[in-house]
């Protein structure tokens, strides 16, 4: 049986989670620990991808990054293919999972006692150092919880990926798309195998990760 969709999904979701973390943690920090005009509105807007039907969201993304879209045209000129490639699947996964990460991490950042940060400042640390040595470690549990959620959501994305990357076998057909394809073609044994593999893999991954990167404090 062709296991390409499994590897593809792993690849896509790992890369997508990494990007989501890099983009999402600073945003979550800003929402959680800084006050600025429009903050509450922005924080609420971040949640909207969760509310839209995935294929619709995927369609909007496609309009943006497809060959006719503003972003897509620029990328085309530079020779970068985004839509209908695994990168498109990564984009879809990021869009799907970033709201989850931001909300989870934001709660963690909000809970950090500001006086601990104040103490760190009086002890001679720069803002950057305060973030890395105090704020992030104390919000670590929430950030990790958000990352786990993000990974699972990225792994299991269907609708957005379907539109932005397409379900091209051997190229962009991720595991969820492959399972769906098998089900539609009434190939239940294949579908079930893939589904079991997906669930099993994710469980093993998360258990292993949890053990290895033990949560300090």
């Amino acid at each position: 049986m062709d296991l390409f969709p499994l590897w593809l999904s792993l690849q896509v979701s790992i890369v997508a989670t990494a990007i989501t973390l890099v983009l999402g943690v600073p945003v979550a920090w800003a929402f959680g620990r800084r006050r600025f005009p429009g903050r509450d509105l922005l924080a609420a807007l971040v949640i909207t991808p969760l509310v839209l039907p995935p294929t619709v969201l995927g369609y909007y993304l496609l309009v943006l990054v497809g060959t006719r879209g503003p972003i897509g045209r620029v990328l085309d000129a530079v020779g970068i293919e985004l839509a209908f490639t695994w990168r498109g699947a990564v984009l879809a996964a990021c869009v799907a999972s970033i709201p989850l990460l931001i909300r989870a991490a934001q709660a963690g950042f909000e809970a950090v006692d500001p006086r601990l940060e104040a103490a760190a400042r009086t002890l001679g640390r720069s803002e950057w150092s305060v973030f890395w040595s105090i704020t992030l470690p104390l919000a670590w549990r929430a950030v990790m919880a958000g990352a786990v959620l993000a990974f699972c959501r990225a792994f299991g994305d269907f609708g957005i990926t379907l539109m932005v990357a397409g379900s091209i076998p051997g190229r962009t057909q991720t595991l969820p798309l492959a399972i769906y394809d098998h089900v539609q073609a009434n190939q239940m044994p294949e579908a079930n195998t893939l589904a079991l593999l997906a669930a099993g893999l994710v469980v093993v991954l998360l258990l292993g990760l949890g053990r290895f990167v033990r949560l300090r404090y």
Partner: protein
Amino acid sequence: MLSVALTKRLPGFTLDVHWDAPDMVTGLFGPSGSGKTLTLDCLAGLVRPDAGRIVIGDRVLFDAAAGIDVVSRARRLGYVFQGYALFPHLTVADNVAYGLRELPRVERRRRAAEVLARLGLSGLAQRRPAELSGGERQRVALGRALAPEPALLLLDEPFSALDLPLRRALRDDLVGVLREWGTAAVVVTHDFTEAYRLADRIVVYDGGRVVQSAPRSELLWQPASESVARIMGIPNLLQGTVIKATPDRIQLRWRGQTLEAVNSPTRSYLPPPGAPLAFFVRPEYVRLVRKDRMVADLGHHMNLMRGQVVNDEDFGTTWTLRIRLDEPGPPAQGAWDLEVEVPHLVYEILEIERDRHWEFSIHRGSIHVLPA
């Protein structure tokens, strides 16, 4: 040493203070919410005042007019927060070493170990704050603030989180530490005994303003006004009426008695007859007249009065008696007129438990008048 002038406007509260501290330890004393912690935050650079000037030694940390605002991490101050604000995810050793980043690793470890040893914390170096007792946490907070050798130490209610016996013990410890390290300090407290014990000079806060700034003994004996006396929680704060006032003496009427007090140190307070006058008498300066002596020698016993002990409380080494005068009319302080403090020994010898009727006197120098 330290010169502070601050103005900060917050919704519902305005801080507007100005005081100088030539001494080593300055206490900021006053009721909760009077702006003491806010002052410390401004000193530390955590809050930006609207106007003012902060100078430590020869370093200008803040000057609104000149546009100077040294950032918090460059001020080199140590801050012991109320509740200590220890980093829960770091060990004791890491907490103490936190401010020593700029030192090379070896030097950092050495210094942290030294600080821990001086504060008696060496055995706890690898523990987390959650595993420590209140007293231990307080010492870690101190060590963390002192390790970088700051120019000034700020302490916010350093003992409020502890129980009474521990408080006393640590208070004495702190006095020793401050003296030994030779670091100047500003201590915030709402407990007068604490302020008196720790600080050389006390600045009294009330409602965002300074109502008195004086060396501690001066504050104790000469509160600037009745409201300061009230903030200090002085017992026997009483109201009388002036009979006659001269630069040396003031004669006043109180509860049917004619009392004579020395005038205030300035000798310039001359209220007219009939004017109301606030005064206080320290409980330990009321003398009970022994009954085995003959009738009072008036030269010896001034301001002689007579009354009954209506209430007494055992404080271990002393007894506090509450005396109601043999005068008609409502007593001055609820159910009694005067609070008197006698050492345990005196209580027993005079058999006060059994014998409740007493004559007592107050030396005119022990009646402190409070200018309006």
